[in-house]
């Protein structure tokens, strides 16, 4: 009960008080989706454009995830944390509610873009669409966890934005956005799979382009995301406990 109240509080806060975090990426993502869907299909054909578009849509969670992770780090390492610590709920639940609500905040943008792309001709049926949203959420928790691991270790809050943009570029470039994963040598593929987005992109491509539900990929995605999520959670919790 208390956890639900806190989760909804964080979610509402993310979507209303912090609307500027989602508004700017949302606008650019919508514009990008419209132009890329049209332009890529005209330029490289339907299949290649679908491969690129699905990769591009997936990385739309990065901008919001980075902002959310930075905000959570700031919130739990400054005096703002005193408010949460005064609530009749365990620290572990506070962190959990914060990360899970942040992950959910990242979903509307790629979901809306996916909807626009499908309206513009990207063939996605309803069940695939729903599976992709679930996969997105799992990937978002992993991405948030990944950023939190490093942002929690930063002592100087001023440096957080630099670290965050560096991490965002790592997540973007070490993922198969514009090409299939198997074009890389196996050791590189393994490293790339530590990025939750890589597995999410692979999963959605299999689903949309080949119509295959890759169970193994979603299991790997869940495992990698859980790893980053738990590590990020543990480090943020430690930071929170040290503050105040």
């Amino acid at each position: 009960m208390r956890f639900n109240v806190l989760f909804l509080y964080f979610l509402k806060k993310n979507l209303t008080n912090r609307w500027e975090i989602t508004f700017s990426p949302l606008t650019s993502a919508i514009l990008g989706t419209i132009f890329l869907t049209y332009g890529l299909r005209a330029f490289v054909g339907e299949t290649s454009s679908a491969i690129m578009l699905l990769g591009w849509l997936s990385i739309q969670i990065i901008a919001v995830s980075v902002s959310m992770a930075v905000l959570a780090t700031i919130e739990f390492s400054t005096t703002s944390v005193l408010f949460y610590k005064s609530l009749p709920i365990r620290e572990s639940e506070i962190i959990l509610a914060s990360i899970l609500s942040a992950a959910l905040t990242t979903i509307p943008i790629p979901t809306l873009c996916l909807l626009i792309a499908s309206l513009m001709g990207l063939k996605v049926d309803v069940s695939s669409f729903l599976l992709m949203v679930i996969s997105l959420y799992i990937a978002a928790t992993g991405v948030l966890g990944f950023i939190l691991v490093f942002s929690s270790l930063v002592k100087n809050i001023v440096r957080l934005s630099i670290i965050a943009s560096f991490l965002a570029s790592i997540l973007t470039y070490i993922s198969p956005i514009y090409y299939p994963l198997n074009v890389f040598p196996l050791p590189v593929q393994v490293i790339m799979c530590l990025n939750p987005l890589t597995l999410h992109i692979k999963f959605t491509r299999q689903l949309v382009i080949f119509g295959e539900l890759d169970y193994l990929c979603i299991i790997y995605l869940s495992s990698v995301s859980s790893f980053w999520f738990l590590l990020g959670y543990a480090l943020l919790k430690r930071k929170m406990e040290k503050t105040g």
Partner: protein
Amino acid sequence: MTGERQILIGHGLTKHYGNKKALDGVDIVICRGETLGIFGPNGSGKSTLARILSGITSPDSGAIRIFGQKNKVLLRKNVLLIYQSTLFDHNDRVWDALVFWAKIHGVRDYKYRIEEALRRLELHDKKRSRISQLSTGQQKKVELAKLFIRDDASIVILDEPFANLDVASVSIVKERMRELVNEEKSLVIISHCLDDIMEFADRILLLSNGRKIREYTRDELQGEIRKSSTAWLLELTLRGLSIKEVKSLEEIEDVEKVDVSIDRLVSRILERLGVSGGSVKVIQLSASEADEFLEKIKANNVSALSLSREEIQLDAKIYLLSLNPLSTILKRIFEKGGEIKYINIRPKETLIFEKLLGRGE
């Protein structure tokens, strides 16, 4: 303090912030239905203790038991902390912040209670405002609204409850505090203002530099305070006035007494007599002793010694019953050709605190 009445026991509470020891082995007991006052100057560890008692901050060492259990969530459920400035997110709207806070504390009729709290605190027209848009006093009222919304807390800790509040709001908050006392709640009032504490507290705990100096009952502390009617202490370093002239300030109405220290004067005399001023430990003399000392110098025919009026520097402590004589004192000093090298005025709290500290230690 019988065991069954004790609902919270803190033992050996110690907290460091970096190298600074904010709290140093404090023991504290809070009993059912009693009001405990925590008194101390700024930086004495009062707010750190409040945060530890309410489960917000964990002590580095020591432990807190509530109802015999060492459980942080149970502590947070049973202790309501009214912080000195609001803890709510300043971007939240007043209504949303209070609704969330009430819901997470499981307050059933929260809408009615919040409406009622805002009405009593005259904040009703601000409920849709963001907390950041409110004045400091109004933000404090948002924090104080908690006091009216929850009634399930066994202990209510109020950290500087009347700071930044107007007189009308102070009266409303005091009324609510009296209601809580009647409901057999335990209250902890933290303040550096002794009057605020004395109005409610049954027991008063004195903190200094993070250490518990002593505990008083209200009667004991009242006894200590009665011994001194001083309201303000005026500290001056004067040049160009004689001891007699400074002592004559006692004639002014509402001046309780004037103590003159001639340490600087003695140093100067010793210096003139050829004794190294820096190596001599200057003796403390009262005003009459000082006059005697000067007489002795004269009697010993220290004819080589002559001090101009400008060379005479005296330290004076003037105990005032009110601030009314301040302008007369300054006028009198300047009229007599005196010069003020240093001036400092302190309220009675610091005097009482110094006095209590002296006895406690």
